[in-house]
């Protein structure tokens, strides 16, 4: 992928070529995290209620991550017209220098 002319569609995500492995890697990382916490930190040996008070608040991360990434993805869509090589951009007048590109 490195040594060829890239269109914007191809460079939209760098790890495209291993998208299928990302999910596996995330699950394996979570598994490692689980074992660190339960075995090394001995949380698995504590009273159930203590485990719950530590694990349940971490559920807040679900919405924390989802909402942030969702909005980040939305910014990418909003910026699309300003990006180099974007077809929409080429219909307009000559491109300005990048540092002033978004000034109104």
């Amino acid at each position, binding site marked *: 992928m490195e040594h060829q002319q890239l269109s914007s569609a191809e460079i939209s995500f760098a790890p495209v070529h291993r998208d299928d492995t990302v999910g596996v890697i995330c699950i394996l990382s979570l598994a490692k995290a689980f074992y660190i916490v339960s075995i090394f930190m001995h949380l698995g040996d504590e009273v159930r209620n203590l485990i719950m008070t530590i694990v349940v*608040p971490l559920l*807040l991360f679900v*919405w*924390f991550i989802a*909402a*942030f990434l*969702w*909005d*980040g993805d*939305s*910014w990418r869509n*909003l910026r699309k017209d300003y990006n180099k090589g974007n077809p929409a951009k080429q219909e307009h007048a000559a491109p300005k*220098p*990048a*540092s*002033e*590109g*978004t*000034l109104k």
Partner: protein
Amino acid sequence: MSNEAVLHAHAATGHAEHHEHHHHHESFITKYIFSQDHKMISKQFLVTGIVWAILGGLMSVLFRLQLGYPNETFPILEDILGKWAKGGKIQPEFYYALVTMHGTVLVFFVLTAGLSGTFSNLLIPLQCGARDMASPFLNMLSYWFFFISSIIMLSSFFIETGAASGGWTSYPPLSAIGDFSEGSKAGMDCWLISMALFIVSALLGGLNYIATVLNMRTKGLSMTKLPLTIWAFFFTAVLGVLSFPVLLSGAILLLFDRHLGTSFYLSDIFVSKTQTALPNEGGSAILYQHLFWFLGHPEVYIILLPAMGMASEIISTNSRKPIFGYMAMVGSLFAICILAFLVWAHHMFVTGLNPFLGAFFVLLTLLIAVPSAIKVFNWLTTLWKGNIRFTPAMLFAIGFVSLFISGGLTGIYLGNSALDYQLHDTYFVVAHFHIVMGVASMFGMFAGIYHWYPKMFGRHLNHTLGYIHFWVTICGAYLIFWPMHYQGLAGAPRRYYDISNWHFLKGFDGLNQFISTVALIVFATQLLFVFNYFFSMYKGRRLTTKNPWGSTTLEWTTPINPGHGNWPGEIPEVHRWAYDYSKDGRDFIPQTEPIGAEESHH
């Protein structure tokens, strides 16, 4: 070594420590300054909070002077403030610094440290039946981090370029680039460093409160027998421990953007003053808003929950009735605590937030109405047909409920993204949050001070001054903030230096003067309270009984002036919940009394 060895070793050292204190004579420094007694630390928080409240209030008087009388000059201001009020007129840079600092100081220093710092420290050990906080040393550190943070924030006013002036939310890029305004120079660094230290203080305090409530309750005091104050402080601490770190991250990234040339929040910026394009690219200013409000929204509940807890306790005690729906009260506190973390982006509807994502935030935001309504319903039904004693504390607690209803209803308007497009950043928002969170929590704090002052100092506050304080403040609060709804609906933007420039807002000149006048009167009345506070410490009416309000809770079983360790002998055992008022023909039954064989169920 087993776990039992650790637990018992702790209990043993705890006892030994306590024993020592009976004989050990404390020096002035260990008793009043570097004290590890939770009661003294709570007073330290309160006095620092009062100083900050006076300063913060004074700031609001100054900028209200500008808003009410934009064309007048006040030569005396130049004598006091120098270049910040050149020609007797508050300068725009100073105005923005005042508005920023007013928000920061009131939200963080007064209503977070001053409110939960004071009352969590005072009441958690006393109402849980503990000798002190879990870790008195970290508790002391918590205050001193707050103190250093205060000093840094205060000192920023004396910097050549003035205090931070980017609003209490300090949004980049304004706050990130010194060339944008005077207040974005050294003042902003002070603000960020002060906030970082404040976060450390809040964490140390919060961890202590949580550990104490969970681990140190006296025998028999199960969680469902806790007074609602403790539940509220507990959830407040949970909110703080989970949300303040996110602000810390946001503040660190902002510091990096300011000084290390990173582009976390900055992208495509052209500085007109220096005619240069900045190299930063790829960052997003909205990211800071997300991080800020991930703390910011829980923060408003950090402010509000202690007031709710104390109002519940005071209303029940002074209605001589059990609190209505105890478990519903705990449940709604819990629900508010959870929802607080899920709704942050409702502050950001107009920033360019994905509107579809915004719809989820509208839904979650409006859900908060449910637990809030449950709480209001329960306060009203607790008052209903009660044998009400209108002590100053009770008046302030009822005032809290009134303000919470008035301010809460406008929250439903603002929680709708469609309406928020019209109302965002207008005086409608200013009115909403001042009533529901600012003044309401101040009322909770006043209620707490009037109610527990006898426990703090062994004397009563002067009640006549208390009644004057209450009536002027509640009338003033509504007179100041109610008209702001109309200004906001008409489109008056908040934070502006002078709104009289627009023709369509001309009609509000008189109203603005009226609001400013009332603000001045209310501020003066608060000074009356401050006088009452310090005067009564030395000259107030002495307590003659341990339990002046006829309360059921544990703090009133301690001596009038409890020493370090709170109870001279054994810690009392608890046998019942905290709300046995007017039961079986008795006015109240303390929590320490065993349940009798004949007793009815509640």
